[in-house]
């Protein structure tokens, strides 16, 4: 049985509460994120995804309910919420806009410096983080302005990885990147998990990316969690996903069309490899 790293218990969050602009972002949400998993959060725009991830490191404070890290309420000692943020690293959308130091090296070192680490350890962390995201060492002394968009994105992620968070949370880490840049980022996240055993939580709109890189999925719709499970469990419910305004991976859509046309293929197939295997089996038996 796997252990829960993060749990949400009956969490509600309302923006501008008590004003005419009141918006309920999360409504009595409970969830469990397994230690060491790569968990994806999916949902249409405005479903509460970004609020969900901002609660995980205490950037937002739920008005109702609790967020537990290793079974402990992260707000138990409100003055020590800063320590939680070292343990749960959050990479926001378009994090490259937040690079602010003169060199990439200084920017990546910002987090570890705030943790009060000594110089030697900081330097070690910077190199470790740069290696994880595949940023060449000669780039470290350049200004953020001299880097390409994809490199800047990787530098920003390295700045969070350098804190060695037990939980790494990323809001749309590959948005706007081309296929090569996207694959490089997701591969580095998988490597980070595999080598450190950390829990990785990813928010994305791309069902194809989620299908390829996540093990578990949480589906949000209108401020509520409507499904939680493995990729194949979730993508088996293609009709429901369309109903709540989400796409399914192209391959899942194709398999569904085939079963509508009378070819009996398994539910919940979401990768090209599985589809080739399943269809080869079906076609050979003709």
């Amino acid at each position: 049985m796997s252990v829960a790293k993060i749990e949400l218990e009956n969490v509600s969050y309302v923006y501008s509460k008590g004003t005419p602009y009141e918006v309920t972002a999360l409504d009595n949400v409970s969830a469990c994120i397994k230690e060491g998993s790569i968990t994806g959060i999916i949902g249409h725009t405005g479903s509460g995804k970004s609020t969900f991830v901002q609660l995980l490191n205490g950037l937002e404070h739920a008005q109702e309910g609790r967020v537990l890290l290793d079974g402990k309420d992260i707000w138990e000692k409100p003055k020590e919420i800063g320590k939680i943020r070292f343990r749960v690293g959050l990479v926001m959308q378009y994090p490259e806009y937040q690079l602010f130091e003169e060199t990439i090296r200084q920017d990546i070192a910002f987090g570890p410096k705030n943790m009060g680490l000594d110089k030697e350890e900081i330097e070690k962390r910077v190199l470790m983080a740069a290696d994880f995201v595949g940023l060449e060492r000669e780039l470290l002394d350049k200004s953020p302005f001299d880097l390409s968009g994809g490199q800047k994105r990787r530098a920003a992620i390295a700045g969070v990885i350098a804190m060695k968070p037990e939980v790494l949370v990323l809001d749309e880490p590959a948005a706007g990147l081309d296929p090569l840049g996207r694959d490089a980022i997701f591969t580095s996240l998988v490597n980070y998990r595999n080598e450190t055993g950390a829990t990785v939580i990813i928010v994305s709109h791309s069902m194809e990316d989620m299908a390829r890189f996540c093990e578990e999925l949480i589906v949000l719709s209108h401020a509520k969690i409507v499904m939680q499970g493995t990729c194949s469990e979730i993508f088996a419910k293609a009709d429901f996903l369309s109903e709540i305004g989400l796409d399914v991976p192209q391959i899942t859509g194709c398999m569904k069309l085939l079963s509508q046309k009378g070819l009996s293929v398994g539910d919940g197939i979401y990768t090209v490899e599985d589809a080739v295997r399943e269809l080869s089996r079906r076609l050979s038996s003709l």
Partner: protein
Amino acid sequence: MSDAFIQVENLNYSYAEEDGREIPVLHDISFEIGRGEYVAILGHNGSGKSTLAKLLNLILTPTSGRILFDGKDVAEKELTEDELYQLRRKVGMVFQNPDNQLVATIVEEDVAFGPENLGLPQQEIRRRVDESLAIVGMTEYAHHEPHRLSGGQKQRIAIAGIIAMLPECMIFDESTAMLDPSGRKDVLRTIETLNREKGITVLTITHYMNEAAKADRIIVLDDGRILMEGTPAEVFARPEILRKAGLDVPQCSALVEGLREAGFAISGDCYSPELCAEAICRYIQEKRA
């Protein structure tokens, strides 16, 4: 093609490093875009597609080669301010970041910015603003503040601002890259309307396959060269070339590729789930017959 709106002939571009070295970015690129055509340029980051966009918008000047808009060479000599002005009126450009393209504090004022600068009479400006907002489906937001809109809505306002100039051609440089799926769909639908109903020549520069699939023709760029050119069906039928260019292969094309490798001779186009399912069913029927 005799009625070409954009002609690019043997275009080369290199930029100079600080130490004086010339770094070539585009190598001898030639292509034509017909009047009223919808063409997508596909390429990964660093393939030269952004440089090409900047050349087409005359932000950069080619090292050698010609760019003709509507038969007029725009790269030959430096254009006068007036010529540049006329050209930018004819060819509108939409960029990646919606936040960088809006100038006013009210949506309809933003859309009116271009026509106002043309010195048009008040009623004409009013007419153009209303019509442009209607085309992009944003009429009800005319009095909203742009910064409160979603990315896709902002991008459609940016598009409306260009349509109000009555352009003949529009170039979209990664215009959907920062949008969520619903914003992307809205913008793509708007682009299709502009092309199919208003007859505007469209060139989109992108790395999204499903976006390129909507075009009449795709030009694949890799390493500053044209790697392949054809209809979406022709281009997506060549997964090996797409991979070489650092691009995604549509999942359904990869599925059929895998099945063919496993010895099942499935024929026909198969880049969308519908086409793919049809192709597989056709294969089954032929086998059974």
